[in-house]
């Protein structure tokens, strides 16, 4: 019979008409975000970073700029370079996460934000000071140690540098064993994660 198909289709429409909506009203309501979400506001730990620039070399677009200088303590003893510039040009970033995958010291993490609208392109460059001062809620993308600890960047507490690593860093092991290493860390903001401890 002609029109039966239309009637069947309208039944579906009616069923969906009385169903609660699947969408949410975005700025007021938010969908839950998964811990692996790759977003902006990279989380970076100054204390962990040695300035090896693996992330900058591995970035497909070359948007990470790093300038380092030898630090006061000897590099040969396993200490780090001072990071003078660590700029990430978020405006060109495609959030592939290869920089995070490349980091051998677990110093760089993806963030979980996605609302970084700015009026000018230069505001989209994240500088080293901004990275130092940012609230550190790392995404668990490519960081199984955070995932095993069931860390959720949306609800979890900000993490300090001691809690995020895979413990493969030689000087970190020494320090765990009780050795005291005098480390110079640039104070970007009022407090660093060391002060908080």
């Amino acid at each position, binding site marked *: 019979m002609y029109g039966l198909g239309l009637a069947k289709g309208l039944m579906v429409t009616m*069923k969906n008409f009385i169903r609660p909506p699947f969408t949410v009203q975005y700025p007021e309501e938010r969908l839950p975000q998964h811990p692996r*979400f790759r977003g902006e506001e990279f989380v970076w730990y100054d204390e962990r970073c040695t300035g090896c620039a693996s992330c900058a070399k591995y970035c497909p677009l070359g948007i990470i700029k790093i300038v380092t200088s030898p630090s006061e303590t000897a590099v040969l003893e396993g200490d780090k370079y001072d990071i003078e510039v660590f700029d990430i040009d978020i405006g060109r970033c495609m959030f592939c996460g290869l920089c995070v995958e490349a980091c051998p010291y677990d110093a760089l993490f993806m963030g979980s934000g996605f609302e970084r609208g700015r009026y000018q392109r230069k505001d989209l460059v994240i500088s080293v000071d901004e990275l130092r001062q940012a609230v550190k809620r790392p995404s668990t993308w490519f960081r199984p140690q955070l995932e095993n600890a069931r860390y959720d960047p949306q609800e979890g507490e900000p993490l300090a540098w001691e809690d995020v690593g895979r413990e493969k860093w030689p000087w970190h092991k020494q320090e765990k064993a009780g050795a005291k290493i005098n480390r110079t860390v640039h104070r970007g903001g009022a407090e660093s994660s060391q002060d908080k401890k």
Partner: protein
Amino acid sequence: MPIRTEPVTINIGPQHPSTHGVLRLRVTFDGEVIVDVEPIFGYLHRGSEKLAEERNYVQVLTLTDRLDYVASMTNNQAYCLAVEKLMGVEVPERAQYLRVMTAELQRMASHLVAAGFLLQDLGALATPLMYCFRFREKILDLFEMLCGARITVSYMRPGGVFADAPEDFWPALDRLMGEAPELLGELEQLLMENEIVLVRTKNVGVLPLDTAIAYSISGPVLRASGLPWDWRKADPYDVYDRMQFDIPIGDRGDNYDRFRVRIEEVKQSMRIVSQCIEQMPPGPIRTELPFVLRPPAGAEAYGRVEAPKGELGFYMVSDGSIAPYRCKIRSPSLINLTVLKELLVGWKLADMIVTLGSIDINMGEVDR
């Protein structure tokens, strides 16, 4: 007394919502009847093949996400297969299963977009499209859980996949597989017997099988013309040889067949995903490879997959350095688009929009 008419040439696109991206069609009409169609593309050309020549093998993977951005998983898979062939590495079994599973989920998502936009082009504005998108949204949500992104996934790596699925992925996938038949059934009930859809799509834009083969058409467009040709069966890659599934074919090759074949393929994909969940073996998910791959100089490899839109192939040539010497992409959308004129001459403007939708092109892949 007959009114004297002359053919009129008009442009449709590149900024036109129903050309599925930045495709421009130069169409000559006699009244409302199409006399000639010429697709003009290149508005989304980003030079992916050239960009690949100055990036190392893992970095190129991020470019493949952006070819067919509706189905990034299968792009990843084709590229990884090519690089693995080039390097001569084996992929762990669990990684192969994860690849097949995610590729089939992606095929479901891509076919839902194709079906939804075909109906949108028919004039069923928004409602059926939103039903398709509701289903697709659940799949994309799983992808976000799995690899942190919904569209540009970058999930696979040469030698496996980058990480195993998180613990809460498996219950979520089971939930989706439970809901999927109902969601798809709703779509079928809404549309497959709808008289308006039948009248507008049956016997419109018929592609005979010999023409399809002559134009080297692949994917659902070829299968709708009646040839059961699928690389998953013809040359099984990863673990497709262990999967039980059928190849749905159409009998006439019209717009309705192309639409129906896609819906049937979604069902077959659901079968494959459930088999993957059952058979998923434990074990490693990635072969240990160095960060910077250096395939032997002079090596050549062609990796191909049955992408949702057809045969997607990567032809890679190495010169022994860290970057490919040549990366040729055989994209199904470009080759399927060439048959457009055969389908359209003699039909009217409104049928042109529907036929273009039924070929399911993606401009990111056409222009690369």
